[in-house]
């Protein structure tokens, strides 16, 4: 394998990752996030837990100590399969509080104390630096392994030069995609996707090597197990202390490692993904671990003695002449190392810039919060931090000379970060945990870890003198670094974990129990511990005393969040307060929201400090807190009651509104009706009064007397008819009508109706068209009422049909259990917009030739048909006026009146 090909392949691979990250960033900016939001990507991104330590170191570890390497993956498995609700709580808090890193979470929970943020940052950087160095070392070693396999083909650039190139490349990638935007939620979609891709590559690579080893070299699974059994090494025996201790350690680390916190909490887009990851992530670890032991055993068998067991994944295929497989393995290792470094660097850089650089800068230049390019400053701080973190890793790598087994370095880092665990769990489960306790616990744990594990790891005489290691601090034997209080029988790693965490927890508990937290801390504590209780999240307190101009805050927010984001946030808040424009009132609620938003970019402590600078120091007092607590209790008590009342109220309000609408409508109808009645009664009355007065004067000729007497008689009849109609209508409308049900012949009923209607405008000669055969139907109905309807319809036709030679066609059809009778004339018909009106009371289309009708006829018809279980409707599109009567063949008993008046209006 020529070295050039190797370099080219790695470069091409890196370029590919760049493209992936770039494309995803672009799509995320355009809001196309569906793919990113998949739980698969989330699970794969969690796989940065598996670094080069897993890829190379696990085999090395297996070669040295057998199954012990499994502990590192079993711990996280236990956490994920059963205790992901802890993780979910972290995720929920992370989202609510816009947490940017684990240091931010601790700092935010314990009263937004930047001191704690600094402490956690320092611990993280110290613990992670060797870990980053480890990744650089593994990449360098893997290059070296290729060089060794083919010494004459290429001149290996210096070990250090390789590391520098790799570190520089990683810095570039991380800066490009990690500080691209100062996201309010500090999410890096491009990087997450690139990591997911790398996760697949490393899994495929390790599985490929494993399959080759088991089936290609080992002779199948059972033969493989036999080989493992045959491999006898006393070092392989399980040591109970280390076994249990390492399971615990890795379980702690999977929560506290900065890079795990980054992908688990900060980059999480959907809480629900955790439930998938609960088994998928352990499954990934399972697959990664499956072939480690076989590779180690076969490697030990086949490779020459003295071969670095940490490189077996790479050197074994090379040794067997499998160049392609080795290249794949190389890419897998490369992926493991680079993805870890990138995320770890982002996580650390966020902490360093938010908790150290920015506060320092604001402290040095207090005016910066009010003026100056904050956004630029933050991005610059972030970038500097990235370079700094990588430079530290590089420096460690060069200073340590790349010594030490990979696994050991990893375990030291785990133990360092595990110091955050007590404060972290306390933060989310114990409201009593206080800032003092966290400070005490963290610092004691950190110092103990440094003294017992980190410093001795450089070897006796390096950073810690051999004398001290042998005889203890100040010559006190019980202070020997690896045998505190005389516990020298323990494994050094377990010894350190035991003592550092024990003292850590003790410090945390004692500090918490003895101190009284300040109000901000108590508010945060309540919000964190009750992360799933929405009511406690509503920020009721915060910035209550103090003065600031909204403009100044907007100004500052713009310079941190960016112009667009800040303005739209202010506008939305102003809108929520019911104000127009961009400047909301400075309510505590708004300020808390603003602070959380800023915290998403610069961390809780810095955000708090920056608002303080503008708004004034005073935030909350204990009295405020007590007042709020009382108020909150009352509010909660009321709210439950109010809630139930509320829904009841809104229900009855809706009912009232409906009833009111109906009443208004009825009132309008009633007015119109009365007005109509008045008109219809007064008109005949006018004639009667006028003529009777004239007659009473008694000086008229006899002809006139007779004529006017006629008029009085006609108008009196008209009045009587009107009153009859009104009474009829009233009876029909109230459903109090009595129906005489009997079998009647439809044809005969039509005959009767025609005969009766012929009195209307008897001078007109109608051509009546009937099909007698179709009228041979016996109906069980009230014949008189039905005839009344038929008369009305026929009279209408006689009255209004304006044709020269009027024709009325009567068509009868039987349809199911119903009879349909159509009356169609050849007149002009009724205009479309009037068709809906004609069945209303007093509806008259025109007063021409109305022959004394009051306009109640069709309304009465409709009511009668309703009582007969049928309908009468206008039939449009018939080249004339057309009415359709439809009724059941048999009406069994007086119909129950339907609530809605049947109003069939075929279109």
């Amino acid at each position, binding site marked *: 394998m020529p070295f050039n090909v190797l370099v080219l392949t790695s470069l091409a691979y890196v370029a590919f990752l760049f493209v992936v990250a770039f494309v995803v960033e672009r799509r995320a900016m355009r809001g196309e996030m569906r793919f990113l939001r998949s739980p698969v990507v989330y699970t794969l991104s969690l796989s940065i837990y598996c670094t080069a330590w897993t890829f190379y170191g696990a085999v090395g570890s297996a070669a040295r100590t057998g199954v012990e390497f499994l502990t590192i993956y079993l711990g996280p498995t236990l956490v994920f399969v059963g205790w992901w609700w802890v993780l979910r709580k972290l995720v929920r808090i992370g989202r609510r509080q816009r947490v940017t890193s684990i240091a931010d979470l601790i700092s935010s929970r314990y009263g937004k104390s930047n001191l704690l943020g600094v402490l956690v940052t320092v611990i993280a950087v110290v613990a992670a630096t060797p870990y980053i160095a480890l990744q650089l070392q593994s990449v360098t070693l893997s290059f070296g392994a290729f060089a060794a396999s083919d010494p004459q083909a290429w001149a290996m650039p210096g070990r250090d030069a390789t590391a520098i190139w790799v570190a520089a490349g990683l810095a570039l990638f991380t800066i490009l995609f990690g500080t691209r935007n100062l996201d309010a939620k500090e999410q890096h979609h491009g990087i997450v996707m690139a990591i997911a891709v790398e996760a697949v590559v490393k899994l495929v690579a390790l599985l490929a090597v494993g399959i080759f080893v088991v089936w290609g070299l080992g002779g199948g699974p059972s033969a493989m197990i036999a080989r493992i059994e045959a491999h006898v090494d006393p070092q392989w025996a399980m040591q109970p202390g280390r076994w249990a201790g390492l399971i615990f350690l890795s379980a702690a680390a999977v929560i506290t490692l900065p890079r795990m916190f980054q992908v688990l909490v900060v980059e999480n887009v959907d809480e629900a993904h955790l439930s998938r990851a609960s088994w998928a992530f352990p499954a990934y670890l399972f697959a990664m671990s499956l072939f480690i032991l076989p590779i180690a055993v076969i490697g030990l068998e086949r490779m020459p003695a003295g071969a670095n067991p940490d490189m077996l994944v790479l050197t074994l295929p090379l040794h067997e002449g499998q160049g392609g497989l080795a290249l794949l393995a190389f890419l897998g290792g490369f992926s493991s190392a680079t993805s870890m470094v990138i995320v770890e660097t982002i996580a650390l850089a966020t902490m360093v810039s938010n908790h150290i650089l920015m506060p320092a800068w604001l402290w040095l230049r207090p005016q910066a919060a009010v003026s100056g390019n904050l956004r630029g400053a933050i991005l610059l701080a972030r970038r500097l931090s990235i370079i700094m973190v990588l430079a530290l890793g590089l420096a460690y790598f060069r200073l340590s000379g790349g010594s030490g087994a990979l696994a050991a370095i990893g375990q030291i880092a785990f133990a360092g970060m595990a110091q955050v665990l007590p404060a972290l769990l306390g933060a989310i489960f114990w409201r009593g945990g206080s800032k003092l306790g966290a400070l005490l616990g963290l610092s004691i744990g950190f110092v103990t870890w440094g003294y017992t594990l980190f410093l001795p790891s450089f070897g006796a005489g390096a950073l810690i003198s051999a004398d001290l290691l042998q005889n203890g601090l100040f010559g006190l034997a019980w202070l020997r670094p690896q045998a505190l209080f005389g516990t020298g029988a323990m494994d050094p790693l377990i010894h350190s974990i035991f003592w550092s965490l024990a003292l850590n927890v003790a410090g945390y508990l004692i500090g918490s129990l003895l101190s009284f937290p300040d109000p901000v801390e108590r508010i945060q504590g309540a919000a964190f511990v009750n992360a799933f209780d929405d009511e406690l999240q509503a920020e009721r307190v915060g910035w209550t005393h103090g003065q600031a101009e909204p403009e100044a805050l907007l100004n500052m927010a713009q310079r941190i969040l960016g112009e667009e984001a800040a303005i739209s946030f202010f506008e939305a808040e102003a809108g929520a307060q019911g104000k127009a424009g961009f400047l909301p009132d400075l309510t505590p609620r708004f300020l808390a929201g603003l602070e959380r938003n800023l915290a998403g970019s610069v961390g809780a402590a810095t955000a708090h400090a920056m608002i303080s600078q503008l708004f004034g120091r005073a935030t909350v007092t204990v009295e405020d807190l007590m007042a709020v607590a009382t108020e909150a209790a009352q509010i909660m008590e009321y709210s439950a009651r109010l809630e139930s009342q509320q829904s009841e109220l809104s229900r009855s309000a809706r009912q009232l509104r409906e009833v009111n609408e109906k009443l208004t409508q009825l009132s309008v109808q009633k007015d119109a009706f009365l*007005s109509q009645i*008045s*008109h219809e009664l*007064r*008109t005949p*009355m*006018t*004639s*009667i*009064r*006028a*003529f009777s*007065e*004239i007659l009473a004067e008694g000086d008229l000729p006899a002809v006139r007397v007779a004529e006017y007497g006629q*008029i009085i008689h*006609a*108008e009196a009849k008209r009045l009587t008819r009107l009153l009859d109609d009104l009474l009829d209508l009233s009876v029909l409308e109230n459903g109090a009508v009595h129906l005489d049900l009997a079998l009647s012949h439809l044809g005969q009923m039509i005959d009767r109706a025609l005969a009766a209607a012929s009195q209307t405008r008897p001078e007109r000669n109608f051509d009546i068209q009937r099909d007698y055969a179709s009228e041979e139907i016996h109906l069980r109905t009230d014949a008189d009422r039905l005839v009344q309807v038929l008369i009305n319809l026929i009279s209408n036709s006689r009255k209004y049909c304006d044709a020269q030679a009027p024709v009325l066609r009567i068509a009868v059809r039987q349809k199911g259990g119903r009879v349909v009778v159509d009356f169609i004339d050849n007149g002009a018909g009724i205009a479309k917009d009037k068709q809906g009106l004609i069945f209303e009371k007093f509806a008259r289309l*025109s*007063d*021409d030739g109305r022959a004394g009708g009051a306009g109640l006829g069709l309304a009465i018809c409709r009511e009668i048909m309703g009582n007969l279980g049928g309908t009468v409707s206008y039939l449009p599109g018939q080249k004339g006026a057309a009415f359709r009567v439809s009724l059941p063949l048999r009406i069994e008993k007086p119909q129950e009146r339907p609530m809605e008046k049947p109003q069939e209006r075929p279109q």
Partner: protein
Amino acid sequence: MRQVLLVEDEANIAEALRFILSRDGWAVSVLADGARALAEVARLRPDLVILDSMLPGMSGLEILTALRADPDHAGLPILMLTAKGQLRDREAAERAGVSAFMSKPFDNSEIRALVRDLLGA
């Protein structure tokens, strides 16, 4: 002889009014169609117009409004009759500039006096 134009679609009421007013010495023309009322006023140039409020073609109120809008007939006395008898109609007519307003049914003597009054006799 003073000319009265009666616009009324109820034939019997029109006959009664015609009889009463003619006996009083006025020349009465009867018109049943509201739509032709304006043309008739222009042709006849009556001294008094009696309008029913509900007319086919054009309502009494519309005719009244149109007449009042025409400067030729600004001073023309107009008597409005209505069978609806609602205050609202009366107010609308008064706003439109009616000279007098009378509800149906009425006393013959009442309308006679009113017409005399309007014609300045």
